[in-house]
């Protein structure tokens, strides 16, 4: 460690490399251990979102589904902010792309989950699987019908 490194450390400018090593390992091991390839994980993620969408309207943009490992147990953490609940759930065989609309493409086009460096953080600060943002009271019945398939 050079004097400059030392000063940077003292000023809190730089994380010690051992801490970085631990954080990088934890992330990479969560994926190694799950034995899911990124493609399958992405597929699962899309299907989970579709199911949840049947019951509540969620904010697709800020949804996060990631893997996290602690004590050799890997957990799938989903942080799905709810915009509003649906009064009647959509039927199971509803037209998925129709429900997801333009937003659905965003989900599919997301980079591989491993690239989401903030994944662990987002999942970490929210132990619940569903996080509600603002009032989640039932809204006017017209809204859900708008996304109902014809």
């Amino acid at each position, binding site marked *: 460690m050079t004097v400059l490194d030392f000063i940077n450390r*003292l000023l*809190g400018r730089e994380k010690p490399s*051992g*801490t970085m090593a631990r954080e990088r390992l934890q992330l990479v091991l969560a994926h*190694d251990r799950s034995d899911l390839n990124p493609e399958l994980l992405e597929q699962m993620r899309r299907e989970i979102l579709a199911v949840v969408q049947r019951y509540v309207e969620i904010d697709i943009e800020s949804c996060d589904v990631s893997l996290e490992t602690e004590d050799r147990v890997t957990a799938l953490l989903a942080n799905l902010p709810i915009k509003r609940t649906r009064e009647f759930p959509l039927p199971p065989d509803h037209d998925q792309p129709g429900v997801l609309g333009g937003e659905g493409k965003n989900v599919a086009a997301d980079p591989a989950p491993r690239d989401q460096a903030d994944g662990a953080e987002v999942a970490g600060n929210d132990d619940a699987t569903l996080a509600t943002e603002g009032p989640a009271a039932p809204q006017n019945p017209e809204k859900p019908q708008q996304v109902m398939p014809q």
Partner: protein
Amino acid sequence: MTPMDAVTTASARTILICSGKGGVGKTTLTANLGVALARLGKTVAVLDADFGLRNLDLLLGLENRIIYTAQEVLAATCRLDQALVKHKQQPNLALLPAGNPRMLEWLTPEDMQTIAGLLAERSDYVLIDAPAGIEQGFKNAAGAAREAIVITTPEVSAVRDADRVIGLLATMDVKPVQLVLNRVRPKMMAIQEMLGVDDVTDILALPLLGLVQEDERVIVSTNRGEPLTLEDNPSPAGQAYLNIARRLCGEEIPLIDPSKQRQGLRARLINRLRKTTGLF
């Protein structure tokens, strides 16, 4: 009776020594642990299961005394005691050398179990030095063991590979699995420029069997083919290997994290600042 029954019914402890990644100290640990256990009065057989790249004979200084190998024992062209190479200073310790690398082509898990079973009949401890990797050679070796020691170093690549191996061992019903952390550099750990002991044990979630400090004497002992544990006053790494042997035998020897034991001024200063200011 399957070949594995001979291993499971024997009173001997058949222990796999593995790491996933190469070059982290599997063979060094096997050699030193073998000598240390023999010095504690145990009958020990060490089996070099790294048929592709065998080295255990070299680390034990027995390379010139090999006549037969595991290959001839399996082919029944020699008896086991003809193939076993006894250690000069520690006659309680015997090596069963790896055969020709071409053995890899035909060796089955059952063959490996047969060999381990034969060794278990006549020993207190059978140490199997696994090859690096997680391919068939590793699986053959793991399939013949009842318990395992995973050795790793505080580096991301070694820890990741160790994690893969631990996952595989869990599916193969090898237990208990214990951890040895090798090449520990207390000074670097104290200033958090290296994965700490707690980091590695937390991530891998295994009980810690031993901590071995980085020690230049290991190189010297390898050059000579004389494991450190042969010495009466061993260097820090040698003492660590002796402690591992004692813990294996059930003795309670406290594990001291050397990075927390004696810190330099700089590390103390950084730690003090970290605690008081919460800077990082």
